[in-house]
């Protein structure tokens, strides 16, 4: 009983303090179990057990992924017009899940070409259903990113290529 009175008083007091803005309520998080993911937890059965580096940080420039793209030649300089087009496509089709500079639903594309081959990136865009089943990196990424499979946004190969060029601008 006494406890309730004290608590109520505390709430009233805190309300008084914030009375001028929106009503803020005291956060009452009485949870005591460690809800963080434990370090030893395996992301998924399929994940590589040998590597301690998460898939999103790992560098693999040899893997070309699984899909229609087998070879991409990048020009020495970034094609700015193509990159601009790619940014438009990205903003409409990809941004809902991929923020450019931080982890969101999926990984951020900034610096992606330091970790992945251009072919892998394009195949991930064009052929996600198969990539998450057959490509070891894509499989691990899905586990790392909460089990959310990447949606196929129906981009043409040209659109995917322009998105790739846009990614080159994200250093």
């Amino acid at each position, binding site marked *: 009983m006494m406890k309730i009175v004290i608590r109520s008083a505390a709430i009233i007091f805190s309300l008084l303090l914030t009375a001028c803005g*929106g009503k803020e309520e005291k956060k009452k998080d009485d949870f005591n179990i460690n809800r963080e993911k434990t370090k030893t937890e395996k992301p998924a059965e399929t994940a590589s057990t040998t590597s301690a580096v998460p898939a999103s940080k790992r560098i693999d420039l040899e893997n070309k992924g699984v899909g229609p793209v087998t070879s991409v030649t990048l020009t020495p300089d970034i094609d700015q017009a193509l990159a601009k087009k790619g940014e438009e496509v990205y*903003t*409409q*089709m990809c*941004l*809902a*899940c991929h923020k450019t500079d931080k982890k*969101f*639903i999926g990984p951020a594309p900034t610096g992606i070409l330091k970790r992945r081959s251009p072919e892998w990136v394009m195949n991930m865009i064009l052929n996600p259903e198969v990539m998450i089943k057959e490509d070891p990196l894509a499989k691990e990424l899905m586990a790392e990113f*909460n*089990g*959310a*499979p990447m*949606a*196929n*946004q*129906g*981009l043409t190969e040209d659109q995917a290529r322009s998105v790739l060029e846009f990614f080159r601008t994200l250093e």
Partner: protein
Amino acid sequence: MKKYSFYLVTLLGSVLFLSGCGDQNGNASSNGALASNNAEKVYVAPGEHDEFYAFMSGGYSGNVTVYGLPSGRMFKEIPVFSQFPTNGYGYSEETKPMLETSFGFIPNDDSHHPDISQTNGELDGRWLFINGNNTPRIARIDLKTFETAEIIEVPNSAGNHSSSYITENSEYVVAGTRFSVPIPQRDMPIKDYKGNFKGALSFISVAPETGHMDIKFQLIMPGFNYDLSHPGRGKSHGWFFFTTYNTEEANSLLEVNASQNDKDFIAAVNWKKIEEYVENGGGTMVPANYTHNLYSDETHSATSTMKKEVLTVDPTKVPGAVFFMPTPKSPHGVDVNPTGDYIIGNGKLSADLTVFSFDKMIAAIDGKKYDGEAYGLPILKFEDVLAGQVKSGGLGPLHTEFDGKGNAYTTFFISSEVVKWKVGTWEVIDRKPTFYSVGHCMIPGGNSAKPFGKYLISLNKITKDRYLPTGPELEHSAQLYDITGDKMELIYDFPTHGEPHYAAAIPASILAPKSQKIYKLAENEHPFATKSVSDARVVRDGNVVHVYMAMIRSHFTPDNIEGIKVGDKVYFHITNHEQDFDVPHGFMMIGATNSGLLIMPGQTKTTVWEPKQEGVWPFYCTDFCSALHQEMQGYVRVSPASSNIDLSWSLGE
């Protein structure tokens, strides 16, 4: 165990067959030996597709249902004249205009006769037309999207029943009034019906590229009831045929009073002649009030326009355009065979079918051999135009379809059967019972120059003992007959939704390759679309709030909204950012007084919510979209009307 019984049946079947105790003609009986054969005919294995799409009118549901043949599986219900909470049709801001009429917003109807667009007399699979019977309307369904694309109201009409049949190049979709009414509508004694009421037959042009409908002219006919109609084709292309009843012009107790004349009429209308007449300036433009509602796949929105006049034609002013052919016993269906040579009239109270010859009709018209006139319109002599009579022995003939192999199939309501007969000799070849009280029958392409004579569906009114009982209310039944042999075989029956009157079917190979799978987000021109999540926002304009929201597996952008107040009118404009086939997302908001939404990939839909109570209220995705579907949710904070909390919105912050 099941397998075992199957073998047993097969074994037993072959024993019966070998011993010759079965049907001597080698035809399947309705049960026993060859039942497994019939099962094979309708069985579509998992992962395989049906051969035909069948579009069944929904009757008092106001909609259309899509079935596969021969499996009888229902694939979809297409909302047409009725609100449809399943996907928000007629509830969403975009689709509400589709149900606007001169009587206001009418969210229901009674849909009867679907017909598929034609080119050169053959089904082209572009559009499906269907009539709204009660509030006279014609709808066009786009067979690429399987959505209602257009609805036009029909003025001066009432009980839009002799509709919506297509001419052989889809020049016109025709809508005839069942009830004659005062034209223009006015306050007058009902007993003065005779001679004063009129029946409008509307010829609605269909634009060849877009399918857009426009009433080209209305033929203002004597005050009979215009029951059904069919176009001429081939040699009779350019004519349209309408059955009439109540040529007595009774206004009460029609059950008795409209059955006095031994013969009513089939009206033969030379629409090409009238078209020429109006194109040369003929006809009278009269004031009218009717809506024209058009849906756009680009803006994902419908507009409703009120039209203010309609061109009417007095048939007596166009000599040689309209003739009456006397037809016994209150005719109901009128059907034209695939070559266009014969017009079949079915007298509801008759045992026989009356078949008119188009050639004889033309000869009688050329010879001016009339048997009197009705309201100045010539009546042809029955004997002069008669090609033959089918002495069927059945009772209550209603409708006839054709198989393209010289045979016709007529339904008999009272004697519950389908009768097969030969066009030209008029001999009856076969008859099979239906269960029970069949209305229309339908052969895919049956109302065209090129039917696909493999199956016949009978659309039955009474279901009774055919299925497990489900209380007083029973779905109607459809029955599937194999008509490839000399004799018809009843091979399957299945329930149908609402009351399917007529149906139309088309080979799947014509439609399936053209079916739309997604809407392209880049082509979305909805004025409230959120085409990039960077544009997601909440905008206040007085007490109206617009939420520009995007959705993709498995979150809404934004999913936390604050600053909404009691008394606000909140429009959720939600764009589905998926670009993959079969990934719609749903939306429901607690306390919303209209339906939820089901939004297709690339599409934007809008629903209104008027929060009445303070609190924090959730919304969520209603279509199980992904493994994290349950996580696809959000909150709206609702503050008192007097609060001064700023609007804010966020996702993942």
